Structure formats: structure tokens, C-alpha cells
């Protein structure tokens, strides 16, 4: 049986969702036999595969211009997009800056002479968007996995259902935020 092509992405978030993904323990061994893991913070493949993937799991909110570009690429080249965790689903902690001016904020945090001589390296790092968005405000999302981070068992349940070609059924306490 052909392996299912999977990508994972990490936008504005703490990597906790990827940690929780690794917390599925021995299920990882089953997954390894069934998936072809393409670009991911867990691999060294930096570019999204030109020929696309079956499933992309995305952790984090859309907070800068690079995220915006990547999330659109992922949507275009993935059959299924899974919003992994509260930042991707709701904006969560990264979205706390919404309602504040992003330029003033970045000046206050990174623009002080003590940290960077007052210069902001926008030629090498992506500019912040004015507003942090959950994925679904930018692209259509197929499945939402709640939690900060989502429990490992929930992540396993969703991935295994998708590998079996089934629709993950997310109900009751599966939908608990936080």
C-alpha cells in the first residue's frame, strides 16, 4: 500500500503541539510504517513538496507574511488540512497582540538599543501582519484539533482515522480548548 504523504508546519506557536505529536509514543512506530513524512519541523526538508501531500497538520496562528504565504501554499498542495491546537484553531496566545499596533509592539520589544541597536531586520525576517489570525480566517480548514496542546491520544485518533480514509469524529471532550 502506498504511504500517505504527510507534512507538518509550525507557525506562531510554542511547538507544544509538535511535542504532543511526539508524545503518541509507540504509535509513532505504526505511523512510520504508514506515512511518508515530507517537510516538517521534525525533518530537514525545508520546502513544501511541489507535487503536494495528502495531509498537512498545521500548528500555530498566522502572524507574519511568511505564514500567510506558506498557509496558502499548503492549502493549494494538500488534500486535507488539519488545524493542530488552539493557536491554529482560535489564535490563542499569539492573538493576544491583536488590538495593539503591531509596529509599536515590535519596536517596544525588539527595537530598543539594548537588544538590536534600534534596527529591525525586516530584510531577513518576515514582517508581522497587523492582525494574528486563526487558520480558518485565511484558508478553508478540514479538521480542527483543540487543546493547548491537544492531548497525544487525540492527535493519534485524528491521524489514524485519516490514514484509514475515515472522517475523524470530534465530539464532547475532544473539543475542549486549553
Amino acid at each position: 500500500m502506498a504511504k500517505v504523504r504527510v507534512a507538518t508546519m509550525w507557525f506562531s506557536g510554542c511547538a507544544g503541539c509538535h511535542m504532543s505529536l511526539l508524545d503518541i509514543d509507540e504509535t509513532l512506530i505504526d505511523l512510520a510504517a504508514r506515512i511518508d513524512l515530507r517537510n516538517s519541523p521534525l525533518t530537514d526538508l525545508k520546502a513544501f513538496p511541489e507535487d503536494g501531500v495528502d495531509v498537512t497538520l498545521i500548528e500555530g496562528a498566522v502572524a507574519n507574511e511568511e505564514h500567510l504565504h506558506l498557509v496558502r501554499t499548503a492549502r493549494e498542495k494538500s488534500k486535507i488540512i488539519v488545524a493542530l491546537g488552539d493557536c491554529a484553531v482560535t489564535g490563542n496566545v499569539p492573538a493576544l497582540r491583536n488590538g495593539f499596533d503591531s509596529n509599536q509592539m515590535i519596536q517596544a520589544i525588539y527595537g530598543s538599543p539594548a537588544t538590536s541597536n534600534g534596527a529591525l531586520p525586516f530584510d531577513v525576517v518576515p514582517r508581522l501582519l497587523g492582525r494574528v489570525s486563526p487558520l480558518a480566517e485565511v484558508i478553508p480548514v478540514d479538521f480542527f484539533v483543540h487543546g493547548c496542546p491537544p492531548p497525544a491520544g487525540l492527535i493519534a485518533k485524528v491521524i489514524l482515522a485519516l490514514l484509514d480514509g475515515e472522517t475523524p469524529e470530534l465530539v464532547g471532550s475532544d473539543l475542549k480548548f486549553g
Partner: protein
Amino acid sequence: MERVTIKIDGRGIATSPGRTILDAAEENGIRIPTLCHLKGLTDVGACRVCIVDVRGQFVTACTTNVAEGMEILTDTEAVRAHRRMIVELLFAEGNHVCSFCVSSGGCELQDLACEVGMQSVRIPYAFPRNRVDASHPRFLIDRDRCVVCGRCVRACGEIEGARTWDFAERGSAVRVITDLDVDWGQAETCTGCGKCVDVCPTGALVLKGASNAEMRKKPDVVAHLAERRSHG
């Protein structure tokens, strides 16, 4: 004794006149989700979560009295869709970030999202800027987490009799205030009883010093007090 006969989800039920649809449903073990309703306080129908279908009309179960022959549907596809949208609107209009909330795990709004099957909020989040007031020595209010259900206002007025809490502004700008919109710590009418904290369904009104997911409320306290007083 006068009886009223109604139908809930096709089931024939006899109840007393003057009871609400919610009362009749609860008496018969039929679950209707609620948020602003709290036993012991006057029902106001503020949150709309308890909507039910009465012959094609959507009404709030907590504020609609039963009538002879009334046919009520609590769990149709349309009712569920509206209820879910109401919960999504509650989430969209505040900053209900469960991940660092003291009430996470003990929050009625968080539980409601699970109960109504909210996969995501399908409308843009408002991300409002709200003021936190930590001027009271024992309690604080984080208005980001307030759903303006008014339980604090009613518990303070109806049970404690202090009337410290009230509403200010209108529409989406409405917020709860203490006295004439002074800092809580300066509110002369506040007795410090803490009933507002115990009845608050979310992490809006909390004890100072509670950490992430530590806060647990005791909303039943007002039902006990109201019950005892009714025998007084």
C-alpha cells in the same frame, strides 16, 4: 391542582401552570443547555443558549412559560445549529483564551463549546480590548472572559441585596460595572461576600491568587440560599 399538558420532543408531559419550558424539561430529565440561567436567580434570557422550537418559533426555554397543548422541540437540527452559532458568537465577541485561564476545566462556556459540538468559530473574532480590574483585595474581574450573562448582577442584587454590580453601555459594548463605574476596590456598596465570583460561569470573576485551571466555582450557593429563604 391545575395541570398543564405539553409535549417535549414528542413526549407527553403534565406540569403546573407558571412553570417555564426549562423547568418542565428538567423535571422530566430532558437536557436543555443553559448559561445565564441559574437556579435561585430570576431568569432573564440573556444568553439565548436555551432556545427551543415551539411550532417553528425559537424561544428561550428559561423565560417562556408552558401553555396547554404547547409542542416543544429541544434538539432539532435547526435548534442545534442556532445554539452552536450562539456559542460561537459568545466566543467571537470576547477573548476567551482557555489555555491560560484560571477557570479552565471548571468553565461553563468551555463545557458548552464541547456540548454543542463547536469545531471552530466560523465568524471573525472581534479581539476586543477590555479592562481588567484587580483593585479589590480578594477578587478580580477579567472582562475579556465575561459573557455578560448578568448572573453577578442578579446574585448581588437579589441574594446579597447589595446591588454593587450593574450593566453599563449597550449592545456589543455592554459590560458589568461596580457602583457608578468606579474601581471595584472603591465600590462602597460591595460587602465582599464573593457570591458574584461563585456564580460567574467563566473565568471573568475569580479569586486572586488562583493559577491556571485552579479556580472552581460554587454556583449552587445561591439556590441553597434562595430555597432556605423561601421557607423563612
